[in-house]
């Protein structure tokens, strides 16, 4: 892209070739009116409002579709141009029959703004309004409403649905004056291919498309906006909570186009899933259980009760009889304070959190191979990758906005996508190659791919030589691991394995994306090591648009790990078993610390059975629904002598607690989350907390102080400043520096710009290390009694145990309850009809849930989402652990399925 000079309205500016006049003018602060333009879309030039005069052109040209040339002379505000625009606006108003005074978009509507700017005559606003509303594709939909009378037919909703979201749910229907937006065959929106992302609303320049629940709650002109970070998955989308200052309620959620990392895009959970904030089920007072019933108490009483019980248990059974579960939902500051409390105040390293259940194997595996267990590259680099290899990640459902980047890479930039997943997930639509490996056979697949790469001499010898070690140990394992051998294990045809290997190895830059499909196995660490091997073998690490990219599942699971909510490391992955580091933290925290690493999540539950753990302090986690083998977990929660639950709702877990402490949610506090690309981003208080609820770190500080270890901070910022002093990778972080776009760790000092991708030039551990991995089968395989393989996972609309998403009316409309996916032929064999209740049984439990009969899953396999308390998939899952990372095998267990006997 070369620099070129262009004159606009008599003044010369410098721009880049390839820019449109509209874009170029915008960069230079010159606004050209437009209605059909959205920077996320391919310009369409349809609204004719951005017309400008270009010297040498016969008539006016569209600024959005006309690219700048060297020496171009543009006039944007001539009398003639303004007259044309005025006419265009007047014509638009013949179709726009809205009334600004009662419109929610009032204050943020471009049409309204231009009508004033161009001083349209009053007659224009005397158009008769539509009268009785006729039904359309949004009638009865709880998410959004389409008002044809306000629609100016710019087509942005249709285009964003097709070009960015790739859902193609919308279209124009009919022609001329009767054109309107609709779905295919006018079917209700929720029956179409719509994913309820609401991108159409985000692009609509008028009030034609609007969040239904926001209607009447406050006009845009009166709303204030607080920028914060979405509380759902690990993408870390920046959202603006639009608040009505009069009611102090959240009216709608928007996002600014151009923001990092999501560029104004959101998914259904971020846009429509925040009803939980002002749910009337929020906890408002501390509760103590007396005679099996919760009673409201004062904070003073609650804190005193907790401190005394914990002190008594510690003096009677020792510090290691107490354990704490920190939370990937809470801020970095909460997590730092929590683990400091467990380590310095209680005196044990028994602190862990749900990362154990999702990416413990990533942290363990990548740390061994590279020296650092996080996503190596940045989200926006994905769109420029030559090849993307997605394995065990249902990206468009679990990380929808990262899914958009993958789609963009394929649709706009020609990337080759390889998807390996037992289920035919939505991304398969975009894949050049789809591989359905049998659950639990990933190592075999990857080993065979590496066999092909070496066999066909596609490996990067220079990279292996300079940057890695132990390649010699890898080779013998791979030698016999032919695609044919892998075919017998994985059921994937050998030729497909060869094709995948070639596609990945031959690309200039190849990115691996993976998630729970790789990690949640007894061989999770080995699966991760295999992927690290694959990346090193082809030199696809340490450079842009490549890398090994584990997608983190929770908003702050990265941060909770970073800040030491793990039993073996202090903040910044500094080992508790390293005497020097222990001394450093002892001096920082002014307390003697334990040198012995603590127990992990599942080990804690098992230790309760053995009477080794007497007290459990849980901050914002819900193991009573999220842990595997729930019958066993729930017995442990029942058994433990003293259980504290710090929560925003009375969750399934909180119901077992002796004390429940009400906390504030993300919208009610300040702090930071670290997203999956290691970007530390701000969380900002937007609304007041309910009742007596207090922030997690404040509660912890009070308990610690009462127990005799004084902890206090002025605010979250002071905690971040302390984090920076003891955590080298966060050394350069401060609220001031991360204010606008965050900072990616490692960021060792205040001048450091942050790190976009890891391992450039050298690995964190020096050389990258190959680990030869033999294939090992899953812990529990199908047999005669339990002939199916059951996998569990997420679906788009719900999040984890549903504590938050199931409070959303929009989400409940489209995803009311759980189900089990079963292949059409298996269902036919068992005479199971779609939607009919079935029993799913494993060695650990039984769940009754409707069957979802589909061809998107292979024969012999079942899939259940784990969000639903009425059909808890984790009653069935296996709590066998990966020996290294201690992650349970959620993804594979043996199951039987049968029709539920109907009561006569």
């Amino acid at each position, binding site marked *: 892209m070369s620099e070129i000079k262009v004159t606009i309205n008599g003044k010369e500016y410098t721009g880049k070739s390839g820019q449109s006049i509209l874009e170029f003018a915008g960069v230079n602060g010159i606004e050209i009116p437009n209605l059909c333009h959205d920077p996320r879309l391919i310009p369409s030039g349809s609204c004719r409002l951005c017309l400008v005069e270009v010297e040498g052109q016969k008539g006016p040209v569209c600024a959005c579709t006309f690219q700048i040339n060297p020496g171009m002379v543009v006039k944007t505000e001539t009398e003639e141009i303004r007259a044309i625009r005025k006419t265009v606006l007047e014509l638009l108003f013949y179709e726009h029959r809205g009334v600004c005074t009662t419109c929610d978009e009032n204050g943020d509507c471009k049409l309204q703004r231009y009508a004033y700017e161009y001083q349209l005559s009053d007659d224009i606003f005397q158009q008769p309004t539509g009268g009785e509303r006729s039904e359309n594709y949004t009638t009865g939909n709880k998410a959004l409403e389409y008002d044809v009378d306000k629609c100016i037919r710019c087509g942005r909703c*249709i285009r964003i649905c*097709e070009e960015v979201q790739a859902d*193609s*749910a*919308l*279209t*124009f*229907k*009919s*022609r001329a004056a009767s054109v309107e937006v*609709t*779905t*295919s*065959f*006018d*079917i209700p929106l929720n029956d*179409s*291919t719509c994913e309820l992302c609401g991108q159409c609303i985000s692009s609509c320049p008028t009030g034609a498309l609007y969040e239904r629940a926001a209607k009447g709650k406050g006009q845009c002109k009166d709303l204030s906006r607080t920028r914060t970070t979405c509380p759902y998955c690990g993408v870390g989308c920046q959202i603006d909570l639009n608040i009505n200052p009069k009611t102090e309620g959240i009216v709608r959620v928007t996002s600014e186009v151009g923001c990092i990392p999501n560029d104004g895009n959101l998914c259904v959970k971020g846009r429509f899933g925040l009803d939980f904030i002002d749910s009337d089920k929020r906890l408002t007072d501390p509760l103590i259980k007396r005679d099996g019933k919760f009673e409201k108490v004062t904070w003073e009483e609650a804190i005193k009760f907790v401190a005394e019980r914990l002190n008594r248990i510690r003096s009677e059974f020792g510090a290691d009889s107490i354990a704490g579960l920190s939370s990937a939902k809470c801020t970095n500051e909460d997590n730092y304070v929590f683990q400091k409390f467990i380590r310095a105040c209680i005196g044990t390293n028994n602190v862990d959190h749900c990362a154990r259940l999702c990416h413990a194997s990533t942290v363990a595996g990548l740390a061994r191979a590279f020296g650092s267990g996080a996503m190596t590259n940045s989200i926006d680099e994905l769109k420029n990758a030559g090849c993307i290899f997605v394995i065990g990640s249902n990206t468009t459902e679990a990380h929808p906005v990262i899914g958009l980047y993958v789609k963009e890479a394929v649709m706009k930039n020609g990337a080759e996508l390889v998807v390996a997943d037992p289920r035919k997930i939505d991304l398969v*639509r975009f894949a050049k190659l789809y591989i359905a490996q049998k659950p639990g056979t990933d190592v075999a697949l990857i080993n065979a791919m590496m066999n092909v790469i070496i066999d066909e001499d596609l490996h990067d010898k220079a990279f292996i030589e300079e940057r890695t070690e132990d390649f010699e140990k890898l080779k013998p394992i791979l030698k016999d691991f032919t695609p044919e051998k892998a075919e017998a294990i994985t059921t994937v045809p050998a030729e497909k394995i060869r094709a995948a290997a070639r596609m990945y190895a031959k690309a200039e830059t190849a990115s691996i994306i993976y998630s729970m499909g790789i990690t949640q196995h007894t061989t999770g660490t080995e699966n991760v090591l295999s992927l690290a091997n694959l990346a090193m073998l082809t030199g696809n690490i340490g450079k842009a648009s490549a890398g090994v990219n584990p997608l983190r599942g929770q908003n702050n699971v990265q941060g909770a790990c970073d800040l030491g909510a793990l039993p073996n490391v202090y903040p910044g992955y500094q080992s508790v078993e390293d005497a020097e580091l222990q001394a450093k933290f002892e001096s920082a925290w002014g307390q003697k610390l334990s040198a012995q690493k603590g127990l992990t999540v599942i080990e804690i539950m098992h230790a309760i059975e053995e009477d080794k753990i007497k007290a459990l302090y849980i901050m914002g986690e819900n193991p009573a629904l999220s842990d595997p083998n729930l019958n066993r977990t729930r017995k442990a929660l029942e058994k433990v002598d003293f259980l504290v639950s710090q929560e925003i709702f009375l969750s399934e877990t909180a119901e077992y607690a002796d004390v429940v402490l009400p906390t504030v949610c993300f919208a009610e506090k300040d702090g930071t989350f670290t997203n999956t690309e290691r970007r530390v981003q701000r969380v900002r208080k937007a609304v007041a907390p309910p009742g007596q609820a207090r922030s997690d770190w404040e509660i912890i500080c009070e308990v610690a102080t009462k127990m005799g270890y004084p902890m206090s901070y002025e605010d979250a910022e002071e905690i971040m400043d302390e984090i920076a002093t003891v955590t080298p990778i966060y050394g350069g972080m401060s609220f001031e520096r991360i204010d606008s776009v965050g900072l990616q760790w490692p960021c060792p000092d205040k001048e450091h710009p942050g790190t976009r991708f890891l391992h450039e030039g050298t690995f964190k551990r020096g050389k990258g290390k190959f680990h030869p991995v033999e294939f090992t089968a899953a812990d529990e395989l199908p047999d005669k009694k339990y002939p199916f393989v059951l996998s569990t996972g997420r679906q788009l609309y719900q999040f984890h145990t549903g504590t938050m998403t199931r409070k959303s009316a929009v989400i409940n409309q489209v995803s009311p309850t759980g189900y089990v996916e079963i292949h059409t032929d298996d269902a036919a064999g068992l005479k199971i009809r779609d939607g009919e209740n079935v029993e799913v049984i494993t060695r650990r439990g039984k769940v009754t849930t409707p069957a979802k009969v589909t061809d998107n899953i292979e024969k012999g396999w079942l899939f259940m989402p784990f969000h639903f308390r009425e059909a808890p998939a984790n009653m069935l899952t296996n709590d066998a652990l990966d020996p290294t990372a201690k992650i349970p095998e959620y993804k594979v267990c043996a199951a039987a399925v049968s029709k539920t006997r109907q009561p006569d």
Partner: protein
Amino acid sequence: MDLKEGSLSLEPLDNILASIPDAGDCDLIPILQKIQEAYGYLPPSVLAATSDRTGIAASRIYGVATFYEQFYLEPHGRHTIKCCRGTACHVKSGRDIIRAISRALGVQEGETTDDMRFTFETVACLGTCFLAPVMMVNDDYYGHLAPNKVKDILERYD
């Protein structure tokens, strides 16, 4: 709209798609024309199946099918009457012809007779102003019409 009209065979559709390998967005109009030829109209269930089989978005198919005058989403009569309401025909009392057709068939413009014999449409101009007032039945032109000739003409079609 019923997208699962079980009674309609998808065999004609499969034959059509077999004749257009790797059908994509740019083949959509010819595909729709052939479907209409085979089924007499564009049954939504067949269009939904077209989307499934070709990967062309159902929304796009619907948009195109509703944009063009030539496509019908509802069953059409065996014969199509197109009566001109252009300027020349209007001047030559074309409206009387329209009324005469309506009377003869008992249907309004845009409607189909209950026996599925005729669909009655009016068009902006047939391009044969020298024949005004004029109508077409299928591919046949009838010019210099008078209201009393209409019934006889229509009786030639069954």
